[in-house]
């Protein structure tokens, strides 16, 4: 609605002026002439009454061209101009006001004639018995009323009676008092209400229908006699209207801040609601019956409440409502405000303005106007000087409302855009703060996680505890030792094993593998193992190794220590011994070489080394390998072991590295150093084949 109206407001002043150029406003209905010029022309043309026209039509003349405003009232076209005029008032300057008032005053003198003329004016004149559009509409409504036909007839006659009374009073030449008129009407209302409630003709009607009938009565009478009763010539209503209008125009500088009300003047949505409220308020003048005027007021106030609800976020109270209503009245500057209020006050059913929602809002409107009339510096919270400066126009002002309403489209656009930018900025800042927040949260999250991890780490530190050999393994080992039959050498092994087991890092699983391998591995392998390990370990000591071996091996094969010594000493002399020695040596190295290679390629772990070691020292394995071997052999092996332990503690450490020592070093030691030393010794596989195939091989080796 406002969107349609807004462009109308910006019709150029020049377009509205009288074509005669007299400076007053013209009207399209009068060929673009102002009322005066039009009248003058009409006077010449028609030679009509000199009295001229009544103020009603005059007002229409002075107002602007018709617009697209929709009004439900039957006399819509008449009031159109007034509505527009109200919207325009802030734009108008002083001369215009005088223009609209002066001629009116000039012609208000012969009142009776005016009134009669007015009723003959083509708009809504039920006076002649030809039913007008309004009257036929009422007739239709009357027929639709749900009251008995008797009641309808009675209602009609009552309406005619009151109609007649009002006319009679108005045409009476005696002095008139509007209060008397009001009383007359009010009495008629009471009389009719009594009649409706108590008369037999209305007996069957429901209360609701009775009320509708009473309403109808009031509405018809008021609409038909609106011309007579609305701001009667013998009252000062018109003067008051002018005064209030002028006053409101002077107060155009008032903003929402002055009134301390929570209307956002720049917000487009709020503005729309204010426009709605204003259009309803202005629309009051376009209705004829007091009920409709009240309804208009109610609608206006509801818009304001809606507005307040949105701006305050909760139900608004009267504390907020009244300032907002005052603001709307100030910005609307409704035409003929006083006349309208007085009309309603005087001629509507008294209970209507005393009670009910309509009455409440009407009272609010009245008090808003009273406030505006009596407005002073104090009531706006301004100093007297400031107030005077504003009122006299000395102090310039600019309100967002005014800029939107009158200045120009672009200024309005600027303020709208500013608002838009503001909102965008707000959103932008919200986003950026959100980003910052998120960033902060991320950091916090990271910190928290680290903290938690640290805490957990602290709670459960990674400590490497020495691995305990499972007791069953020890007991097993003991059992093995016991099986050996309490040999003297067993003590060595046992102690060796125990000491080793205490040192090793190898876990139980590995021990288990070790255990398994001990059981599964065949004697040949076991043999190889022993040789490998011995060679592996002893390779640096290679030159010396055979000597004790041979020396100690002697008891098995009945080698005397002397023999061994002689063998070593006299290798060059004795071929047999040399042969034997080489064969012995070669056999050993062969086996070593073969196994070492496979061992290395398989990337043996320390565990395997230990396995080998254990195998070497396992008396059980030895026994299984050579069941036929003499007990002396064990002694030999034991002695070897003994010698190993005795001589090379570091060597054994190489083989079974301490868990605390880096394994890599050991491994490197194997690959870098020992393999070449082995490879240079041998290359013969025959002995290996022999070993595997020939059960006598161990004996051979031993030889």
């Amino acid at each position: 609605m406002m969107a349609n109206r807004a462009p109308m407001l910006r019709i150029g002043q020049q377009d509205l002026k009288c074509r005669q150029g007299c400076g007053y406003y013209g009207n399209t209905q009068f060929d673009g002439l102002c009322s005066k010029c039009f009248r003058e022309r009409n006077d010449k043309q028609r030679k009509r009454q000199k009295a001229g026209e009544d103020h009603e039509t005059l007002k229409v003349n002075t107002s602007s061209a018709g617009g697209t405003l929709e009004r439900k009232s039957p006399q819509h076209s008449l009031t159109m101009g007034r509505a527009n005029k109200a919207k325009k008032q802030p734009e108008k300057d002083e001369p215009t006001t005088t223009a609209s008032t002066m001629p009116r005053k000039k012609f208000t003198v012969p009142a009776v004639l005016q009134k009669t003329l007015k009723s003959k004016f083509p708009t809504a004149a039920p006076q002649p018995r030809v039913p007008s559009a309004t009257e036929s509409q009422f007739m239709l409504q009357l027929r639709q009323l749900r009251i008995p036909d008797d009641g309808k007839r009675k209602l009609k006659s009552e309406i005619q009676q009151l109609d007649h009374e009002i006319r009679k009073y108005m045409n009476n030449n005696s002095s008139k008092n509007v209060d008397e008129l009001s009383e007359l009407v009010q009495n008629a209302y009471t009389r009719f209400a009594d009649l409706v409630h108590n008369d037999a003709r209305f007996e069957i009607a429901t209360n609701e229908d009775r009320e509708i009938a009473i309403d109808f009565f009031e509405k018809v009478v008021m609409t038909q006699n609106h011309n007579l009763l609305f701001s009667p010539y013998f009252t000062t209503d018109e003067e008051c209207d002018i005064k209030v209008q002028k006053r409101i125009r002077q107060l155009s500088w008032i903003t929402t801040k002055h009134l301390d009300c929570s209307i956002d003047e720049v917000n487009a949505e709020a503005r729309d609601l204010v426009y709605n409220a204003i259009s309803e308020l202005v629309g009051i003048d376009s209705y004829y019956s007091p009920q409709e005027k009240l309804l208009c007021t109610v609608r206006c106030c509801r818009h304001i409440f809606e507005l307040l609800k949105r701006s305050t976020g909760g139900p608004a109270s009267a504390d907020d409502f009244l300032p907002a209503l005052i603001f709307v009245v100030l910005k609307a500057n409704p035409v003929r405000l006083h006349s309208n209020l007085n009309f309603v006050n005087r001629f509507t059913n008294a209970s209507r303005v005393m009670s009910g929602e309509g009455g409440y809002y009407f009272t609010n409107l009245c008090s808003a106007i009273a406030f505006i009339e009596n407005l002073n510096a104090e009531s706006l919270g301004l100093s007297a000087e400031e107030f005077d400066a504003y009122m006299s126009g000395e102090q310039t002002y600019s309100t967002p409302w005014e800029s939107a309403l009158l200045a120009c489209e672009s200024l309005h656009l600027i303020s709208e855009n500013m608002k838009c930018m503001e909102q965008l900025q707000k959103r932008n800042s919200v986003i950026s703060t959100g980003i910052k927040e998120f960033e902060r949260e991320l950091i916090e999250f990271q910190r928290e996680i680290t903290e938690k991890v640290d805490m957990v780490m602290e709670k459960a530190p990674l400590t490497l505890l020495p691995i305990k050999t499972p007791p069953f393994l020890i007991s097993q080992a003991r059992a093995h030792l016991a099986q050996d039959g309490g040999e003297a050498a067993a003590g060595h092994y046992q102690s060796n094993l125990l000491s080793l087991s205490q040192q090793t890092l190898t876990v139980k699983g590995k021990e288990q593998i070790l255990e398994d391998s001990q059981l599964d591995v065949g004697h040949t392998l076991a043999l190889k193992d022993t040789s490998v390990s011995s060679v592996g370990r002893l390779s640096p000591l290679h030159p010396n190794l055979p000597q004790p071996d041979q020396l100690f091996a002697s008891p098995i094969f009945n080698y005397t220590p002397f023999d061994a010594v002689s063998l070593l000493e006299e290798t060059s002399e004795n071929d047999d011994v040399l042969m034997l020695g080489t064969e012995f040596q070669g056999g050993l190295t062969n086996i070593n070489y073969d196994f070492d290679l496979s061992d290395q390629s398989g990337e043996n772990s320390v565990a395997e080394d230990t396995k080998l070691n254990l195998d070497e020292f396992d008396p059980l394995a030895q026994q299984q390998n050579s069941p036929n071997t003499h007990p002396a052999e064990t002694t030999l092996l034991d002695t070897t072991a003994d010698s190993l332990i005795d001589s090379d503690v570091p060597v054994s450490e190489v083989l079974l590295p301490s868990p605390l020592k880096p394994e890599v070093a050991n491994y490197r030691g194997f690959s870098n150093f020992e393999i070449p030393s082995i490879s240079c010794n041998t290359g013969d596989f025959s002995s290996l084949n022999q070993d595997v195939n020939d059960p006598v091989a161990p004996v051979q080796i031993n030889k």
Partner: protein
Amino acid sequence: MRGIEGKVVVLGSRGVGKSRLVIKYIKNALHRSEEPTIAVSFFTCNIMLDDVKIKLQIWDTAGQERFRAVAPMYYRNANAAILVFDLTQYKTFTEIKSWIQELHRNVQDPMILTLVGNKMDLQSQRAVSRDEAYLFASSIGATYFETSTETDQGLEQVFLSTALGLVRLADEGKSHSLRSFESTDSLFYTNGNTAFSYTAAAVVRNEDGAAFRLPYVHIGIPVDGQDVKATGEGRLETPSWAIEHIALGEVERARWCCY
């Protein structure tokens, strides 16, 4: 059945919770959880006391000092006034005194006055003592209540006492503006934005129960925080009773009930 229609104005300074008081009461009376959607400064509510149906038209007013000049428009033809002040602000209490003077100056018809000290939940910030308010209420012929819109305490009593006062006023027949009629149905016609149908339903529900005793109205001062929290439902309520009342020589009242 008798019907009485009275206009009640709610007066008081800004921010004392006038609107809140009415809204809360209406809300409770309607058994509705949501706030009234629109027109929140004008209410009608119907109260049933024995066989009298009282229709209250509650007019909220703007409490700002600057609107004091237009206030007579509101309380013109009013039958009752609920004067609200903030218990935590002594200034609002003194302003009530000026309201009373103004009412006495401008209103000729007898009027039911109800003095309400709001925000009784803020006991610690209390600035107006109960005795002082009570004595003042007695001096102006008003009933005094303390309420809390936060905890819904004492709201019903304010309006019920007002309704009772209107019944008494109608019985005396001194007031000209008070509408009194025989037909109950006529109450139905102007119920634009009212609590009517709901209240009527509630009234019907409680009709067989113990009814409000008429015309026996007491100065029901809700005391302290221990009294029963008011709800919109009709039920027997034991009178709030304090040692001060006994000290003041009051007679213990009979049990009374809402609706």
